């Protein structure tokens, strides 16, 4: 299958005696919005860090955009975008400076940067805020800006780690519209979230419990499988059996 962007087989990560990620396997396809759910401590972040090349697996294999996570981390890093759960732009730089910094980091030339950043600003309706310090923007705007900056180099996959934490419902809605737009353009979205209504927006959802993937399917089929009305219920049914506390 040519359109597999992320492929994971028996991926495991141990910290001493503790198995944070326990033999997980899944595939993510091009243009998919893949929801990666799990309670705190279920191992989501650890798994995601391995896929981003921030941490090496103890065993198992994984490939992202065709490169091995164990040996080709550098190549992966150049082709993915990442937005962390903490706000991580520079507050003391302007919107434009933040954009050109990350464009520069991903190797865009001055000309490309200029073009791409202008285009993204226009899409965000941010043109007037070009020279505003990021620190003085409202949180929702910052998150939207973080997202476009994570995609500034047109990555093939974007990893979003709880991107909408602490954001109001309207902005959350707008945020998801941006995610959809990116997915339609062929970018694969790998997103973790705690909001179960957001899980409904995903093409497919995996739910991790105690380091294992316990369920993986489209939201509609998952609800059917667990005879639940909402993803929230599905999640509760699965998480009830968790042994790891917060």
């Amino acid at each position, binding site marked *: 299958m040519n359109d597999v962007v992320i492929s994971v087989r028996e991926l495991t990560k141990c910290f001493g005696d503790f198995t944070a990620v326990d033999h997980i396997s899944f595939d993510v396809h091009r243009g998919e919005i893949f929801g990666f759910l799990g309670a705190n401590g279920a191992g989501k972040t650890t798994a995601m860090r391995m896929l*981003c*090349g*921030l*941490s*090496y697996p103890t065993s198992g294999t994984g490939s992202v955009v065709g490169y091995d996570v164990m040996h080709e981390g*550098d190549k992966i*890093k*150049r082709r*993915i975008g*990442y*937005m*962390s759960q*903490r*706000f*991580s*732009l*520079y507050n*003391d*730089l302007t919107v434009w*400076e933040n954009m*050109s*910094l*990350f*464009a*520069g*980091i*991903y*190797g*865009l*030339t*001055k000309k490309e940067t200029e073009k791409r950043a202008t285009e993204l600003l226009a899409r965000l309706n941010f043109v007037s805020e070009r020279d505003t310090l990021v620190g003085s923007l409202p949180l929702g705007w910052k998150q939207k800006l973080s997202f476009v900056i994570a995609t500034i180099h047109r990555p093939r996959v974007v*990893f979003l780690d709880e991107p909408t934490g602490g954001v109001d419902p309207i902005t959350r809605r707008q945020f998801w519209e941006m995610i959809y737009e990116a997915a339609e353009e062929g970018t694969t979205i790998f997103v973790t979230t705690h909001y179960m209504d957001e899980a409904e927006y995903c093409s497919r959802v995996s739910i991790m419990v105690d380091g294992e993937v316990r369920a993986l399917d489209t939201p509609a089929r998952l609800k059917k499988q667990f005879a639940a009305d909402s993803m929230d219920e599905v999640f509760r049914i699965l998480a009830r059996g968790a042994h790891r506390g917060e």
Partner: protein
Amino acid sequence: MKHNFASFVKKETLHILRDKRTMLIVMLIPVVLMVLFGFAISTEVNNVDVAVVAPNRTDGVRDAVERLSQNGYFTFKGYISHGEIDSYLRAGKAGAVLVFAPDYDRGVAQMDAGIPIKPLVRLVVDASNVNTAGSATAYLQSVLLGSASQQSMFETRMLFNPQMKSAYNFVPGIMGLIFILVCAMMTSVSIVREKEVGTMEVLLVSPVRPVKIVFAKMIPYFAISCIVLVTIMMLARYLLGVPMSGGMWGVFLLSLLYLLLSLSLGLLVSTIVDTQIAALLISAMVMMMPILMLSGMLFPIENLPGFFRIVSNVVPARWYIDAVRKMMIQGVSIVAVWKNCVILLVMTVTILGVSLKKFNDKLE
């Protein structure tokens, strides 16, 4: 990937320029310290107020008083009576009181003729500050003795710093301190800030090699430190009149090495701690204290108790300050302090190596 390194350096420079307060402090502290140590704080005896008790104001007495008041280190506060001595000293109106014997002139004459005499002048000194009291006494004696055309078996020559200016001594010390402050403290805080805020994570997910992130951080701080270095050297040369007879280039070169060492120390600290406050504390406690106490800046290394003398060997500032002092004041060239240079170079390479390794290990 040249472009991404340049954008990093630009980013770091912007961070520094935007933070005007820190910038101002970094630029002003050296100047303030130089002026403070150069003029205000000194271990020299300056402006000692001297009052005189003289029952008979004979020619000899007047002659001695005249010499005192012309001497820049003493201020003649006038003649007082015996009964006032205590109150003058207590009130701080005088730091020392000279009491001349009634037959001072005759005594001096006898002394000149080689006839043994009883003391002619009593020196009453406020010894609440031991240092000033000690040197004031010695200096007063020499000024007065110089008057009596007395033969001495000693001829003293003070080399390199004949006026015994303490500012000369402080300049190298201040340099040793300032660069640690600017380089080590600021780089460590700046790296740790990114860890704390979470931006470091995003940088690490990017294709930029961690080493580049670190070097890009060092460059603007290095530039600032160079400006500070030039400022200090100019102040030392033209405001404080430090001779620098060994040439400025040697001092400059060695200082560049010391800057690198300080930057590496900052990097090392940033790999150990995770919060800005911890970075500050470590820089202040673990680095500043040894520099103040064990580097020879305030106390001579030779005076340290054995254990601390051994510890002082691992304090980089000790070797730096020692070498700069020799170059600035004794006027030797950088070749003469090659041993210090080699030690500092080895320290720099070791610290940089260890911290780069730790920095990479931390990632996994």
